[in-house]
């Protein structure tokens, strides 16, 4: 963060924006500032080198870069005799009014201390900040410094913010933790826009929380996608005005800012990790997301541990591996406020010793002992899956499936055409036609065709698999159909000509 005098902005009513510097375009200035920081140089020397780089277009930039580099520098005092001691000894001898008198005293003191007069002169103010010496060297890319500069500039602008709205995907826990830590408050609307204010914001328009907004920014920028919108109080020709500032994650891909993205959140526990891997093995077409989103819960939000998702249906899972009465009370209240339209399952570690009665008003609670039980969950997933498929099948217009019911076709092809799932198409066909569905090969066979295939096979003199296959090939269907149209395949040996296809015995 920079001091306010280094804030460099562009205002175009009603918008305000920091004067961002493209790292590619300004890398030369950045390099020159960096190169001024030479190990062993004093602060004063470095400052005057940097000052000579300033011009009217870049002076704020140059000073900002200086500040950012200096922030990570290590300066130290360098002297022979402790400066405070040097001064004390000299002061004690009383003030002087001529050069000769001064030299006399310096000589006397220098011989007493066993150092030269020159070294005494140098040490006199060696503890002043400006005379401190740089102790480290730099291995930073000029472009990176510019990215830091752009970030700091944004934070500096936020100092003057009276309101901040954000929309983020990812890094939720960190963001809400930081909001709380910095004493801020939030409101969430149905689109999950988060309006951040301070306690006193409803009483007076204040910039008091600007510094906290600025500190929040890196957490926001660490999420996958983000958008911020801030009301900035700024002075325009002597009068205070509110201007608007907007920024989103595209600015990161444009290379303006350092990449602050964190890797996806780690599992809180081994139980969670194993649960995720076991579940994905059992139900592979479901998506398992960790800390996937926020759920609006009254005035507040909840960040469930997991979301399992398929066909736009979601089950949220909250794992309780810790509790105090207060914690459970708050959690239950939050869950109740989320409402019925979201499916939320609470899984509780049975060893914690709390029971169903501790989850007043919470519909779905399961207990686990060391390992999360998949069964109840899978059951729930399947029923949701079934629901979703049926609902979708119904919502597909009837007209679409009129044509193909006369011929054999691939479910996948149709599903792509109408942009839905294969299972939804299968469901629809099951309900509305009398044809056969081959789930493995994903084919639909109209009843008439199925009959015809059966007849052709029955008419074969040699009912070996080899011959039968020729028929199937003609219709472009797989062996899977044989079972469905009433044939058994009997393997007498591993040779295909010895495999017989026979009608299933009746009434069995």
């Amino acid at each position, binding site marked *: 963060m920079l001091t306010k005098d280094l804030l*460099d902005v562009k205002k175009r009513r009603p918008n305000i924006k920091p004067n961002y510097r493209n790292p590619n375009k300004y890398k030369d200035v950045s390099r020159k500032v960096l190169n001024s920081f030479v190990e062993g140089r004093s602060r004063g020397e470095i400052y005057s080198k940097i000052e000579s780089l300033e011009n*009217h277009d870049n002076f704020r930039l140059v000073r900002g870069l200086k500040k950012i580099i200096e922030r990570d520098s290590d300066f130290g005092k360098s002297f022979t005799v402790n400066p*405070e001691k040097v001064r004390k000894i000299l002061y004690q001898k009383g003030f002087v*009014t001529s050069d000769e008198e001064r030299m006399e005293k310096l000589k006397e003191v220098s011989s007493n201390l066993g150092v030269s007069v020159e070294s005494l*002169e140098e040490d006199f103010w060696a503890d002043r900040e400006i005379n401190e010496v740089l102790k480290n060297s730099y291995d930073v890319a000029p472009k990176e410094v510019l990215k830091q500069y752009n970030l700091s500039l944004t934070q500096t602008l936020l100092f003057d913010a009276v309101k901040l709205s954000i929309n983020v995907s990812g890094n939720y826990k960190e963001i809400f933790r930081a909001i709380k830590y910095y004493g801020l*408050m939030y409101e969430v609307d149905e689109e999950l826009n988060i309006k951040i204010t*301070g306690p*006193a914001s409803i009483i007076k328009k204040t910039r008091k929380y600007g510094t906290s907004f600025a500190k929040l920014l890196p957490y926001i920028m660490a999420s996958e996608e983000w958008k911020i919108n801030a009301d900035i109080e700024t002075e325009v020709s002597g009068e205070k005005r509110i201007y608007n500032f907007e920024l989103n994650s595209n600015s990161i891909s444009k290379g303006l800012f350092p990449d602050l993205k964190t890797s996806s959140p780690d599992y809180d526990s081994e139980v969670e990790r194993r649960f995720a891997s076991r579940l994905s093995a059992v139900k592979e077409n479901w998506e398992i997301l960790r800390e996937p989103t926020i759920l609006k819960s009254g005035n507040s939000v909840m960040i469930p541990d997991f979301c399992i998702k398929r066909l736009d249906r979601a089950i949220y899972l909250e794992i309780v591996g810790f509790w105090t009465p207060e914690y459970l009370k708050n959690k239950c209240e939050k869950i109740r406020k989320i409402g019925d339209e979201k499916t939320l399952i609470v899984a509780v570690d049975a060893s914690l010793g709390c029971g169903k009665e501790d989850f007043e008003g919470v519909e779905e609670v399961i207990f686990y002992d060391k390992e999360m039980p998949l069964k109840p969950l899978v059951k729930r997933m399947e029923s949701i899956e079934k629901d979703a498929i049926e609902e979708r099948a119904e919502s597909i217009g009837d007209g679409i499936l009129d044509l193909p019911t006369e011929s054999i076709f691939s479910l996948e092809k149709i599903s792509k055409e109408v942009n839905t799932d294969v299972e939804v198409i299968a469901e629809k066909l099951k309900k509305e036609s009398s044809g056969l569905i081959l789930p493995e090969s994903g084919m639909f066979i109209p009843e008439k065709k199925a009959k015809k295939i059966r007849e052709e096979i029955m008419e074969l003199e040699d009912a070996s698999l080899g011959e039968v296959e020729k028929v199937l090939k003609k219709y472009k269907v797989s062996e899977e159909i044989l079972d469905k149209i009433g044939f058994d395949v009997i393997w007498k040996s591993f040779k295909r000509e010895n495999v017989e296809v026979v009608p299933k015995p009746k009434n069995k």
Partner: protein
Amino acid sequence: MKLTFKNGTILIDGEYSVPHTQWDGRVDDQRCLAHRYKDISKYLKNSEIPYKDEVLDLVPCPELECDVELRSYQKKALERWMQEKRGVLVLPTGSGKTYIAMKAVEVANSPAFIVVPTLDLIDQWKKELKDFFNIDIGEISGREKNIKPITVSTYDSAYNHAEKLGNKFKMIVFDEVHHLPSEGYRHIAEFFASPFRLGLTATYEREDGLHERLPELMGGKVYEIGIDDLAGSHLSKYSIERISVDMKPKEKEKYGECMKKFKNYLVSRNIKMTGPDDFRKVVLRSGNDPEAWKAVRARNKARKIAYNSESKIDEVSNLLDRHKYSRIILFTRYNEVVYKISKKFLIPAITHKTPNKERREILERFKSGIYTAIASSQVLDEGIDVPDADTGIIISGTGSNREYTQRLGRLLRPSDKEAKLYEIVSSGTSEMQTSYRRRG
């Protein structure tokens, strides 16, 4: 009804609507700024509405006793304040405001938070408080964070931490309370729930009129005494001598060049310089206008030449020679000049960067006579412990500075001779100023 403190505000949970509050949909409760605490409790009590009060969470505090004898006007000021235990006392510098405040803390006999403008003043307050109350004193500042029943803080740190500290002290004291009504610092008073409030200042009025906010924040002005009303005033008599010096020819040349650049810019843009605001306007333009930027730079360079002029140093040398046996305080606003004088004449220097230990030692040694001169860039008069001096030398920049001469003058005590105050001014500079004013 229940009142709780939340980050500088008070939440009111309950069915009655209470004045000074606003509905907060974020938490579905009424909310107000913490400084309304006293008004609200009073209202609830008067209306006989039962309520649970969880606002204050005070620092545990021993019985506070302090061993201070007040002078009669100090007693009167304290009595006025005690009527409401709120309000501002206006007293001139050097009239012992600290002692009144300490007595007020004793009367309140509860944890107190004292806000002062600078770290130096923190040190001085802490020292006095410790001496008179005989307990450890806390500090909230950039360099230390340590809460005690009596805690001293700077305005800046109090502003930063008001949300967390606002319910821990029953009493809050603002030294130099005229700083308080500014847009930022106002939050300190607003975020503190402390029902007892004391403000101290020598200058109640502010040029921007913001002192009108003080009654709401602090209670109004409850006592005022002017410098002339102080009986048996121990203010000293002194005479002022203004010395104008010419810059060295080379400096003059360089100065002239720079000022010319600046003036030419003003003429080219048709800007009239009538006050400091006009210069600010030029600075504002320097972001877009390269010429303005160059002009501002030239003007700053000129000023630097003027205040750094060798001729002034020569004059200092003359004065030091003349006052070899006096006790001298040299004052200039410019740190650089202090460092230069210190090294050239071997005179102890005090700036805001001087470490506390060294500063204290310098002042003590000046008091005891080991040192006979001090050079400072800080106005030492807000302190309590300013040592006596009989000679003052002010090195001004471009033109005389009445405020500083007055303030330094107050520090002077006559010895066997009359106290003497010198002000060294560069002669060329003010001429230049008037000349371009006329032309503009």
